[in-house]
């Protein structure tokens, strides 16, 4: 065994692992570079160099232990934070998703319109004698046949053509049809070609055997960066916030727009736009109440159960197992079950109590339901923590206090609780931070509702900041990822501040000094 793990074997193993990891990273670098994800490619390259320098040299022994963690920290924590901060400075919403060059090409594409009759032709794609792309077009209803290239249109006499049972021309003099494979090989060329028809119209291909008559309604002028509607004469200019707007009517925009930098506008909107500020303030207050109440109730019940279970009881082990069950069950399952139980018409809770409470349609009841379900999900955690902490408190302290005449309540307040809080304070802070962003419970139980939508509310009564942000970013209607990013950054700052304050107050980091 000792021989097996001698230096040569371990060093060889190390090089094999490094080679394997390097291979994977090289693959990812090439793949991400090919997909034009240059930031990811750059990060992976730096990571690869760092791995090589760390594990193939002895420059820094501690780095051999820290490097994997640091790489993951940058990839999955620092990176997303930086990306969110960057996105918060952009007009990044429905209608403004793509880059400006892409938006221009999309506007040009949608600016090509079929003629009023939506005329289509049955076609065969081929080449003329000079190997130019050519179509043999048939309109069997009107007995119209012609050949068309990008520059010329030649009308054909139906009498000299070979036609099939549908009346479509199959052959024409000087026309050489392409096989399906040949067509597929020049797909892009076919798609890009505008076949000649008349001065006002041209023909585009709409599949292997269909073409349609089109005209360009929007013309782009790259020197002035403007679009002109050739039918109405309207001019559309870059409005500076990611759209081409009609110069004469600035609310008339061409779509799509693009992701444009708007710097701090999303942040200022949080405070200046009443449509955003009002719901945000309401949601923020409820988020604080929800997180505080959750932590308080979970801790209180967990502590109570722990104190009861700390005494000698018949069947204590069985009780302990039962109390841990809510924690052991997947929370998603529990939340969905509770959701069904709270249903007004068909739920078990109303049936059991003989009530007809509209748990999820009334703001007060919905909030109560959220707290109750979260209490059920979270108290076993505090029960486990408090059980351990209570058992760690020396019994002599309580005994000495009792001898000195202290009552049970005094012993709890003056000895047990302070010692317990020393241990659980960081966990209370962590629990607060977790519940501040507890998306699952809100999304799965109430969906953030109920919402007084008819009263003008945008946010739901149980929406917390994170679920509200999700709605803004990924809601059914207009999505605003830029604004959602700005709110996410604000949430991050709040959570970081509260956590830092809580940790400092609890002095938990002092032991590391």
């Amino acid at each position: 065994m000792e021989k097996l793990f001698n230096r040569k074997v371990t060093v060889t193993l190390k090089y094999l692992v490094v080679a394997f990891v390097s291979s994977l990273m090289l693959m990812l670098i090439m793949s991400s570079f090919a997909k034009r994800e240059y930031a990811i490619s750059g990060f992976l390259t730096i990571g690869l160099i760092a791995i090589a320098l760390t594990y193939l040299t002895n420059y820094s022994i501690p780095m051999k232990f820290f490097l994997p963690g640091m790489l993951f920290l940058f990839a999955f924590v620092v990176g997303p934070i930086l990306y969110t901060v960057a996105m918060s400075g952009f007009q990044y919403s429905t209608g403004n998703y793509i880059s400006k060059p892409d938006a221009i090409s999309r506007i040009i594409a949608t600016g090509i319109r079929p003629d009023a009759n939506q005329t289509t032709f049955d076609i065969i794609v081929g080449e003329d004698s000079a190997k130019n792309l050519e179509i043999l077009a048939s309109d069997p209803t009107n007995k119209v046949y012609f050949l068309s290239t990008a520059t010329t249109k030649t009308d054909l006499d139906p009498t000299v053509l070979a036609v099939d049972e549908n009346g479509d021309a199959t052959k024409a003099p000087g026309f050489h049809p392409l096989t399906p494979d040949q067509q597929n090989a020049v797909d892009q060329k076919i798609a890009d070609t505008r076949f000649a028809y008349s001065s006002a119209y041209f023909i585009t291909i709409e599949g292997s055997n269909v073409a349609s008559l089109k005209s360009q309604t929007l013309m782009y002028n790259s020197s002035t960066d403007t679009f002109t509607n050739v039918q109405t004469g309207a001019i559309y200019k870059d409005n500076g916030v990611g759209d081409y707007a009609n110069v004469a009517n600035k609310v008339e925009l061409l779509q799509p727009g693009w992701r444009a930098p708007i710097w701090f506008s999303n942040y200022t909107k949080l405070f200046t736009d009443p449509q955003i500020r009002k719901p945000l303030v309401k949601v923020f207050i409820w988020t604080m109440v929800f997180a505080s109440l959750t932590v308080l109730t979970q801790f209180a019940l967990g502590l109570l159960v722990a104190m009861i279970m700390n005494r000698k009881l018949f069947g204590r082990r069985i009780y302990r197992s039962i109390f841990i069950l809510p924690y052991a069950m997947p929370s998603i399952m529990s939340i969905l079950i509770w959701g069904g139980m709270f249903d007004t018409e068909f739920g078990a809770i109303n049936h059991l109590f003989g009530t007809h409470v509209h748990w999820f349609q009334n703001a007060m009841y919905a909030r109560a339901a959220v707290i109750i379900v979260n209490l059920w999900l979270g108290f076993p955690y505090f029960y486990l923590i408090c059980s351990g902490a209570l058992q760690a408190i020396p019994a002599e302290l309580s005994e000495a206090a009792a001898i000195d005449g202290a009552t049970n309540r005094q012993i709890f307040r003056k000895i047990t609780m302070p010692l317990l809080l020393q241990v659980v304070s960081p966990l209370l802070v962590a629990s607060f931070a977790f519940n501040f962003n507890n998306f699952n419970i809100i999304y799965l139980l109430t969906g953030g509702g109920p919402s007084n939508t008819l009263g003008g509310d945008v946010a739901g009564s149980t929406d917390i900041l994170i679920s509200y942000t999700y709605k803004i970013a990924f809601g059914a209607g207009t999505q605003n990822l830029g604004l959602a990013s700005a709110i996410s950054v604000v949430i991050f700052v709040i959570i970081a501040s509260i956590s830092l304050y809580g940790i400092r107050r609890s002095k938990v980091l002092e032991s590391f000094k």
Partner: protein
Amino acid sequence: MNKKKLSFVGVVASAALVVSALLVPSANAANKTVIVWADNTRGPNLQTVLAAKSDWVPGITIKIVTFSGFDALKTAFDNATALTGPDIVVGANDWVPTGAKQGKLAPVTLSSSVRASFTSNNLGDLTYKGVLYGVPLDYNNVGMIYNSKLTGKPLTLGQMVNFYLANKTADKLTAGLCVAGGGMSFGGVSVLSALGGAPYVMTPNGSVSATADPVPAATVAANINKFLLDKKGKSNGFFPATDTGCKTAFLAGTVPYAIIGNWEWTDYAKAGFDMSTLMPVPGVNHGQYGSAFASVSGAMLTVFAAAHGVDQGAKSVLNNFFGSAAGAVAYQNVELRPPANKKAQKDASVTAAQKGFGKSGAMAGIPQIGAILNGATGGKSFWDLLPAFWTDVLVNGKDPLTSAQKLDTFFQANIAAGIPQL
């Protein structure tokens, strides 16, 4: 670094390069394959159809990518890029305005024969600002089913309410009419319509009226008072404001009438319910019916097809497979939804349930216009407003007249903002 070590590093780096080069997939591997994205029900069904016949377009392989659900598909499409996105996406018609605004859907022109296979309403469902973006696939609608073991075919809403109130205790009914499919907005719109309201009023020429009152508040409020509330102004229990548990309750026989989606009718058929009992929700007067959305899902062309070099191939797939009667029949024989293709609708293989939903849609169907429903003003979409309306009048005891007036105001604002986008 000494020479020996340097050479070792060189060996490691070379080995890594060789392995990584072998691992990188060939860039040309997917050429001339048209990629179609679909949800968890449509995806496997499309695969079944394509396994039976794959040569819909010569030289083109159709590859189906299935997502875990409709929402997952939508999220993936929202995040799709030229390098990851599909050539064709199968989705709801209200994806069209968003997809067009996001620059992800590409215009398509169908051949005259394919266009003639669909109604102008169906094509209009997939049109945004006058540009068509896909081929209609099948109707996406709901219909009302009644439990024939409990009651007969109702002629009016009043009959249904009377039946419920008279038999509530004896039959242990938990509700009279509930929404099992489509939620309180998509499914519940037919009840609003039966009561006299609508998200928008359609003119005889098939356009949205800019002037007609979508929710005549006095009429709707009077009907709510008469049919849905008791003398104290509280819900009489006939129509719950939530859809939770409705399906289970209907299948258990404790709800006589339910609004179900055409995507789930087999669950009811398997439980022994007769699909000939499908019908629109009856209105307050005999012969009137509440309108439901009868829009189509579509196979939509994406801008990524051009980026992948299969623009023509994807257009051919739309015309030759999704748009053809043969393709529609083959697909709907597996998917079991009412086909949008007119020739396919007449095919002998289409089931009674598919025809029932089609008939229900034809009797009382309104187009689902995303540009209006998705709410251009203040984020207050139809999808949020209607459930809130039900909650206000049926749960929170708010005055139906005031609530109906508010609903009307929002609907009118959405109509005004949406019409210019059509």
